[in-house]
């Protein structure tokens, strides 16, 4: 079994999930409560990774973080390293790729909080932001858990985007999914099978625990 690749996959999934929570919660709040007419455009952009082939997304991310791009140059000036084919580069791509899996469960959870509870909080003199932390977030806990689990599991299993942006560098960008592909290419079916089985096991356990905890059918579903 390729422990190095598995460890890398888990590390990438954890970091991605953490970053996505920080970005996703405010974004989902805005999407849930904004009355802006053109909000649907943002919703469509957020949902794009659901339908785009990973290679397309990976291609654009590669261009966007490459040494020619402003972002790539900025990062290079800052760290004197390059984003493509690095863990950090993978992180950027994973965050974009898994964004809908964080945002959509959050939006559906925030929007289903009874409007009157929010108004009751305002009428009691509590500000919008405090109302979010004291009423909306606690009542959206199942949605938050779903978002975390989905983002983690989805990042764990990504392949195309990683290959496009990260390549296949052992210990740096060779994730479990890529390692399986590698082993199959080398006709090393035994090693591939072990890693694959392990991934199936991890994903199953994570999802099963979530279902068990929430006791709700379709809890782990992005929309």
């Amino acid at each position, binding site marked *: 079994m390729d422990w190095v690749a598995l460890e890398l996959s888990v590390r990438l999934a954890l970091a991605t999930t953490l970053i996505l929570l920080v970005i996703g919660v405010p974004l989902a709040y805005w999407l849930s409560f904004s009355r802006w007419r053109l909000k649907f455009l943002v919703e469509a952009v957020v949902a794009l990774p659901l339908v785009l082939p990973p290679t397309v997304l990976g291609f654009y991310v590669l261009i966007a973080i490459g040494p020619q791009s402003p972002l790539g140059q900025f990062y290079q000036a800052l760290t004197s390293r390059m984003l493509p084919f690095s863990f950090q580069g993978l992180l950027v791509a994973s965050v974009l790729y898994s964004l809908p899996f964080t945002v959509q469960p959050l939006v559906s959870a925030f929007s289903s909080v009874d409007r009157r509870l929010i108004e009751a909080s305002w009428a009691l*003199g509590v500000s919008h932001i405090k109302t979010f932390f004291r009423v909306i977030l606690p009542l959206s806990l199942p949605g938050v858990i779903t978002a975390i689990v989905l983002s983690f599991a989805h990042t764990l299993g990504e392949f195309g985007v990683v290959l496009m942006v990260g390549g296949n560098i052992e210990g740096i960008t060779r994730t479990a999914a890529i390692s399986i592909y590698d082993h199959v290419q080398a006709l090393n079916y035994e090693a591939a099978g072990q890693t694959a089985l392990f991934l199936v096991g991890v994903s199953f356990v994570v999802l099963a625990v979530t279902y068990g905890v929430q006791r709700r059918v379709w809890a782990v579903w992005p929309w």
Partner: protein
Amino acid sequence: MALVASFQKKLSSRLTVVADFSISLESPSVMVLFGPSGAGKTTILRCLGGLERPDLSPNPFPKGKGSSPLSLGEGLGERSYHGKILYGDEIWFDSEQQIWLPPQKRRIGYLFQEYALFPHLTVEQNIAYGLSHLSSREQRGRIAEMVELLKLYSLRGQRPGELSGGERQRVALARALAPKPRLLLLDEPLSALDAPTREQLRGELRRLLLDFQIPTIVVTHDRLEALSLGDQMAVLIAGRIRQVGSVPEVFSRPADVAVAEAVGMENVLPARVLTSEHEIMTLDVGGRELTAVGSLSGSGVFACIRAEDVILYKEAPVSISARNHLRGRITGLHSEGPLVRVTLDCGFPLTALVTRQAQEELGLSEGGQVVAVIKAAAIHLIAR
């Protein structure tokens, strides 16, 4: 010091809610905002609470050809619209200065129809929710006070899901009252309860509201609730306030036919004025003559008669002070608990309310003949 509400809110091309009233804040009283459902009562309450913004201009979105400018004219006037909500000299809303105070700054207590208790918090945490600006000692004091006042001792640690409807209502009241609001807004406070609980809590709520000494506005469509909770009453029909007055006054002397119907005046009879002298008017109702007290100008009026003011006799009584004697045929009998609602045809339909005993003693049955007697003073006249 008064709460002044003068604004409008367009809900659809067919319904614009117009509020135009003021409430004295010096002697806190309970004002009932009464009307059939869909009249816009809750909208007015929400605007007062800051949960909804009144319109900034008399014509907030382009109007279709369907709605007539006249319907606006009778409210605030299309041209001279100046929407405002004032609490004493504090401006909560002003359409000209574009001021709108958010609900957080109004210091109000708002009771939602279904109570909207926070399901993830205990009773005590619910009550404490609006107190985070106080020190924890003050908070504990305020919670204890509310628990005492609303008798919530045994419920302190429970969550809303475990409470009965009546208990939820008390907790919601405690939560609204704990921050000591300057104005209490109650949206159908009893409608979410089952009938027996509602009966029981009606009186209790009135006593509590008197105790608090906080100006209160209660929205309701229930006549009994209006009668038992309110001091003052405003009747809202199709977005317009049709009458403001003391509760008994509105119930006994409705300003127009729509109000009469809304407050459950059983008999609203179109009548033609025959003579009018010394505040005694003779009317023609469906070919029969009625004597009433009043001095309305115009040839047409509505005569309003409460069913309980109609007395039934088997034979025409001799020497009796009541002026109006009408022979009629019974067209229907409907029992309502201890009472029986008798509908008569006296040349016009008339409804009377008598006890079951009276029905038996008089042998009232469908098709039978009776004489209905109505005092002239029991007929309330409305201009047509």
